[in-house]
């Protein structure tokens, strides 16, 4: 409150302040040896001010009154400097006056689980992976996070939130000749992550999947390569589809990208405003939602970092593009209200528009029926590489594993699977989405955006889906 009062006394039309304490515990095991057993705790304060319609922000780890005065004054000076190269004055739209507290629902507080128990689970998973011959490197890890945050603004908002995250996974790498093959579980890059407690880690049963993950990595060394430069039907498993949604649906709907705020780094978007309500982003079976309320989602919270309440809003309805991820400022430009997508990665960063949970809504198909219904195609799962252009059109993805589908049956194992496409063509080729029985909330804890860079944790619910006439096999 001291910062807010000082800011207003010095002419700020608006100010907000966040005080954040962040705790992380991280354990990683490699080939049966503990590679890392660490814990961190950091705290700090960030003050954002709007002076004559221009922004300034300053932050510090030091929470003394003198330092808070210093950074508030610094933020005001920075805002004045911004005013030297300014244009249209910032309009934040209606006031935000949220009050309350929120805590992630947890059954088992992950910080109350002993380090010994956490480590024992990972060592057990490692031992299971090690029972399979031919694996070069085994990895298992667990990460738990607790973020405690206070937010206040000059509109009168005051919120307090405690967000818990639990993440982890296993990975087996097999090497043979010039081949290197990797399998991970439950999600790519050794980490599925959710908002929730240790019960999530237990539900994934890492030890129970250890031998399978190792066996698949070894089998991939001698599997047939993915057919090259063909066009076929593609069924994507849930984890790969979650990343597809992240890259080709979440990012292009960030309204700050559309308005050019990220042009210097992350890029812009092909979803320009005149397309809202008229553009067929996908086929009629494609429904995409942005929400910050679904259980387990990494984008689930009580209020965003502008104090806007958590909510759910459609982005694509039956294929039609209908919504963006917005902030107060960008929503006001569009004549709408913010849907609460402003998130800062820490006390030392300003909030920018980030994905919350951006999900493909479940369809009607059972997975087995989808396979049976596919005469000729490839099933791909678990991301291995991902790349997309700066407007979010041309993409290319690679997966850890694939299976040929012939005459309605999953057949031979395929390695080095890749596929490529243009975003709206791809989503308009989607003709089937699996039902809620197959829908899982996946986590992407490594989304990069902003200058200076920020890493966001985003959620993506997805069930397997089928896409027609997709170009696959682009290793060369």
């Amino acid at each position, binding site marked *: 409150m001291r910062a807010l009062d000082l800011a207003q006394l010095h002419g700020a039309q608006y100010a907000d302040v966040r005080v954040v304490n962040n705790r992380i515990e991280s354990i*990683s095991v490699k080939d049966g*040896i*503990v*590679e*890392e*057993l*660490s*814990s961190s*705790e*950091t*705290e*700090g304060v960030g003050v954002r001010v709007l002076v004559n319609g*221009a*922004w*300034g*922000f*300053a*932050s*510090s*780890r030091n929470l003394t009154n003198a330092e808070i005065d210093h*950074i508030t004054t*610094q933020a005001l000076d*920075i805002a*004045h*400097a*911004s005013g*030297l*190269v300014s*244009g249209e004055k910032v309009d934040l739209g209606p006031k935000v006056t949220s009050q309350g507290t929120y805590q992630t629902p947890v059954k088992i507080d992950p910080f109350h689980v002993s*380090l010994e128990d956490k*480590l024992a689970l990972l060592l057990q998973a490692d031992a299971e992976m090690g029972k399979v011959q031919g694996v*070069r*490197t085994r990895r298992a890890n667990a990460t738990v996070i607790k973020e405690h945050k206070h937010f206040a603004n000059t509109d009168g908002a005051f919120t307090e939130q405690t967000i818990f995250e639990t993440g982890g996974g296993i990975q087996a*790498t097999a*090497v043979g000749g*010039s*081949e*290197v093959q990797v399998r991970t579980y439950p999600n790519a890059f050794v980490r599925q992550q959710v908002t929730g407690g240790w019960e999530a880690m237990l539900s994934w049963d890492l030890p129970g999947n250890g031998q399978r993950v190792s066996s698949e990595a070894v089998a991939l060394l001698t599997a047939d390569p993915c057919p090259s430069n063909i066009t076929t039907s593609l069924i994507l498993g849930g984890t790969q589809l979650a990343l597809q949604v992240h890259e080709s649906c979440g990012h292009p709907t960030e309204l700050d990208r559309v308005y*050019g*705020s990220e*042009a*210097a*780094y992350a890029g812009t978007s*092909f979803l320009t405003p005149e397309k809202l309500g008229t553009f067929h982003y996908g086929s009629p079976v494609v429904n995409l939602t942005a929400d910050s309320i679904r259980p387990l989602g990494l984008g689930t919270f009580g209020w965003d970092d502008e104090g806007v309440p958590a909510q759910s809003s459609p982005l694509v309805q039956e294929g039609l593009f209908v919504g963006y991820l917005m902030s107060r400022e960008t929503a006001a430009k569009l004549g709408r209200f913010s849907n609460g997508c402003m998130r800062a990665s820490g006390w*030392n*960063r300003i909030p920018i528009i980030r994905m919350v949970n951006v999900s493909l809504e479940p369809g009607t198909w059972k997975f087995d029926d989808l396979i049976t219904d596919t005469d000729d195609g490839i099933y791909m799962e678990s991301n291995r*590489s991902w*790349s*997309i*252009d*700066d407007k979010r059109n*041309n993409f290319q993805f690679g997966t850890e594993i694939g299976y040929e589908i012939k005459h309605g049956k999953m057949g031979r194992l395929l390695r*080095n699977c890749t596929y*490529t496409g243009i975003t709206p063509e791809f989503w308009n080729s989607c003709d089937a989405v699996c039902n809620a029985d197959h829908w899982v909330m996946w986590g992407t804890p490594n989304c*990069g955006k902003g*200058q*200076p860079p920020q890493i966001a944790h985003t959620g993506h619910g997805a069930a397997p889906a089928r896409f027609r006439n997709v170009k696959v096999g*682009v*290793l*060369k």
Partner: protein
Amino acid sequence: MIEEKDARKLSDAILKRCKGNPAEVTLLFNDAALTRFANNIIHQNVAERDGEVTLRFFIGKQIGTASTNRTDEAGLDELVNRAKANAKTSPEDPNYPGLPEPEAYQHVAAWDQRTAEFSPEKRARAVGAVCQIAVEKGLNASGAFSTGSLKLVVANTEGVFTYHTQTNADFQTVVMSNDSSGRAQESAWKVDELAVEALGREAIETAQRGHNPVKIDPGEYTVIFEHYVTEDLISSLNIYGMGAQALQEGRSWMNDRLGEQLMSPLVSIWDDGTDVHGSPLPFDFEGVPKQRVDIVKKGVVMGPVYDRYSGAKMGKLSTGHATPIKLRGYGPLALNLFMAPGDVTVEEMIASTEKGLYINRFWYTRLVHPRDCVITGMTRDGVFMIENGEVAYPVKNLRYTMPYVQALANVEAVGKASHLLVGEYGGLCARVPALKIKGFNFTGSTV
């Protein structure tokens, strides 16, 4: 920010709390600011002050790590207690070689007071000059101008105490029209070495030349890469295989190729943390002095960089390339890369090319397969067809999938001028020239 004598007092206070157990403390204090602009106005403008304290606590070969950004007495007590508890829980690491002993290291000049004190107003005025030119040309400028300083200490109970101060400055801009764009960037540890307006004009000129781009068929082309692309080539080779751990795990492009002529003889790449023409850092995050390491010498693969852990596993000494604790899972990395410049200018490369592509930069590049460091990515911010030794017309952005090892084997010419660039997440820096490469494989194009 912390002065050397206070840093020594603080590190001593932490190590003393470890009560005879071996321990290593890293202090990283930073004071950073960034002025960001888009649509020809400053839309984000930020500053931060932070200090990270990381402690590794050893009980024999049991290792526990803890970090905090508190430096008060209670905070330090809590830090040591956590690190000790973590060490007690952790089983022994039989491969751990122990803490290094003190070694003399080269103190390098990397601090510029003017950079450390560069005000938001000065950044704003420099940005404003670039935006003004863009407005006059009917173009849209975006970018970021950052300045800052950091102080790094690594100390341990064996008597190691290393202290380094550094300033940094970076200006980058993307200038756009409705159908074209251009980009320019430069990094330095002295802000006055950044020719901000010239960089702005470079990006503007590229955008102006890029109107009405033509869609072309993918395929193999001779390419001329600006240094921005070269930075991506060697940074990718770094992340995916210049460190000894990648070699040990069998996933480096160097595996089974040490001593082999894998790349063009025109290609020499080395790492040198003491060279003031980079972004110098004279010791690593274990306090071991950095050595100059030849990674590739005239196309021959010389070997990786090591830290103490990976070196001990392979019977080699550390080359001073341990990364910060939270990145230690990646193994050692080269943080200060150089590629040897050549003897031709970009204009001469273009003039010598009958048909090819002149490319400003790559974007969103990711590993597809580690063996030859096969990378996929997009071109961005300026692609031009060369015909008969001249830039003929602009081209729509292309996707490529190409082994970077093969790309550097196909180098036909290396640029005279080299430029310093700090990577998108900071920390990794490279001083690199332009390149001419034959047979570069493009697999698609954007709309």
